[in-house]
């Protein structure tokens, strides 16, 4: 089984999101970066499938040179190799990202390497467009299902489950296929220090993709939603607050 996991580098925002003055980006001058959570599960799944079925797990990102950091994290999680589709750091639109991933997959195919399973996140954490995986599948003519929280390989197919209230929907797709996943699919491993050191030495295959189209969705600016921050009523400090908590639960909140 050859499995491709596509991941994105996103800022690790905390208690408050600060925007740049031109409101085009999140101000990342004080932030670290991480891999989107859904995609961490995609990488973990790719590695687990290869561990049980044999084959090769490839982690790919499209982003600035710094995004090799997230590819290396995937390699430290035991992906066999890493690929960077290098950009100048500007935000790529989903059509263009999908196009670049398709070009990469087709190039690998022409070199005789086919991916049996292509894993994506259901939506990227930052732009949340809900479409790169579907667009890649459509262009490659592959079957696709989104929002998956359970994957098993059964012979020549992949059985994928999507959570619904009270249970799950089950889909069975012939391989090769595209599956987009959600956090909760598995428990991504923590890469050991040793694995991280080794990953630092791994070569990351780098390509510079062409942008194919200009998309019809154009960002004008970002805005942080209004803060609902008010003054909390402090009920007390330490266990002495208990009688006051009881009073509030009973009289004001009416939950007891």
């Amino acid at each position, binding site marked *: 089984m050859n499995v491709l996991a596509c991941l994105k580098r996103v800022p690790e925002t905390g208690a408050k999101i600060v925007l740049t003055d031109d409101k085009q980006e999140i101000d990342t001058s004080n932030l670290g970066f991480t891999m989107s959570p859904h995609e961490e599960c995609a990488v973990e799944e790719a590695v687990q499938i290869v561990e049980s079925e044999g084959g090769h797990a490839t982690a790919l990102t499209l982003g600035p040179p710094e995004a090799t950091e997230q590819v290396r994290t995937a390699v430290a999680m035991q992906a066999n190799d890493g690929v960077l589709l290098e950009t100048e750091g500007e935000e790529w639109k989903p059509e263009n990202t999908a196009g670049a991933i398709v070009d990469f997959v087709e190039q690998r195919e022409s070199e005789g390497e086919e991916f049996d399973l292509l894993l994506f996140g259901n939506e990227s954490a930052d732009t949340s467009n809900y479409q790169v995986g579907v667009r890649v599948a459509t262009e490659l003519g592959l079957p696709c299902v*989104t929002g998956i929280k359970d994957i098993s390989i059964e012979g020549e197919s992949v059985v994928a489950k999507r959570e619904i209230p009270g249970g799950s929907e089950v889909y069975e797709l012939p391989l090769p296929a595209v599956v987009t996943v959600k956090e909760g699919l598995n428990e991504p491993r923590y890469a050991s220090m040793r694995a991280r050191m080794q990953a630092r030495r791994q070569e990351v295959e780098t390509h510079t993709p062409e942008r194919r189209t200009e998309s019809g969705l154009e960002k004008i600016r970002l805005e942080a*939603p209004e803060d609902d921050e008010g003054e909390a009523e402090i009920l007390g400090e330490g266990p002495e607050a208990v009688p006051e908590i009881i009073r509030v639960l009973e009289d004001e909140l009416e*939950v007891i």
Partner: protein
Amino acid sequence: MVLCVVEHENGEVEDSSFEMLTLARDVASQLDTSMEAVVFGDGGDAIAADLGAYGVDTLHVVEHADLDGYAPAAWATSVSQVASHTDAETVIAPGTDRGHEVLAHAAAREGLSMAANCLEVTTGDAYEVTRQRWGGTLLEYARLSGETKLLTVAKNEISAEPGGDSAESAVESFEPSLSESDLSVRLDRVEESDEEGIPLGEARVVVGGGRGVGSAEDFDKLEALAEELDAAVGASRAAVNEGWRSHDSQIGQTGAKISPHLYIPCGISGAVQHMVGCKGTEHTLAINTDPEAAIVGHADYAVIADLHEVVPELTEVLQNRP
């Protein structure tokens, strides 16, 4: 014409579809045009009155011999065919798993752009849309162009309001022409889960635990408190990543969305990705050692205390109440 993809369960329209219809009606009235809807599955005709009340003139019920269950690509192809048959200038779907999936397929097939999770739309040659990014922690103002505009509507953000002339929608059946590849992915079966207890999303009271809880065992303290309050127990991503709770209990951007009467976050700092899962909460009572924690700013009530002391003490007093 504005074409709406409506989801229903055996003739009962989903709330998210009513919310979507409310925004769609606004778009239709800006364009001074009509609204039509496309539905799949048994019971489609039963919703004609409901949709009429939301301003839908015509309801296209998709019928095809090979289409008896959900099939994302086949639904997308059908929606595109209804759209071109009716000359729709806009196609709108709810921001649900299926809504996003079907519209993304339609966009990919037709080479169109799509704007996910919109809150507001101003029409024009290009549309100006306000949409959610980062699971709702950020808004994006964007311009959507293309021959047909495809967009989904964020869930739980717009209050559903009937309107229009409230006559029952006219029902028309539509037979799409589907290829084998359209039908290669279909819902195979539904499995019921054996989960017990109150689902997080429905609980009236939720007790949440974060990194401050410290261990899986210490979550027992929160369980005991929850029992006294008929509450469900949730967690932050930090607590889930530590392996103290399963992902089912995670609240936030990549977890469950809760809307309880009361939320009691214990040892949770209040990161934006956590708070976005608690938007529907009416009252928050935070327990945290740090009076400067962001969660205190979001709360109505706060107790500045070590949760390991205050939670058991509170539980005991509740247990001993007459």
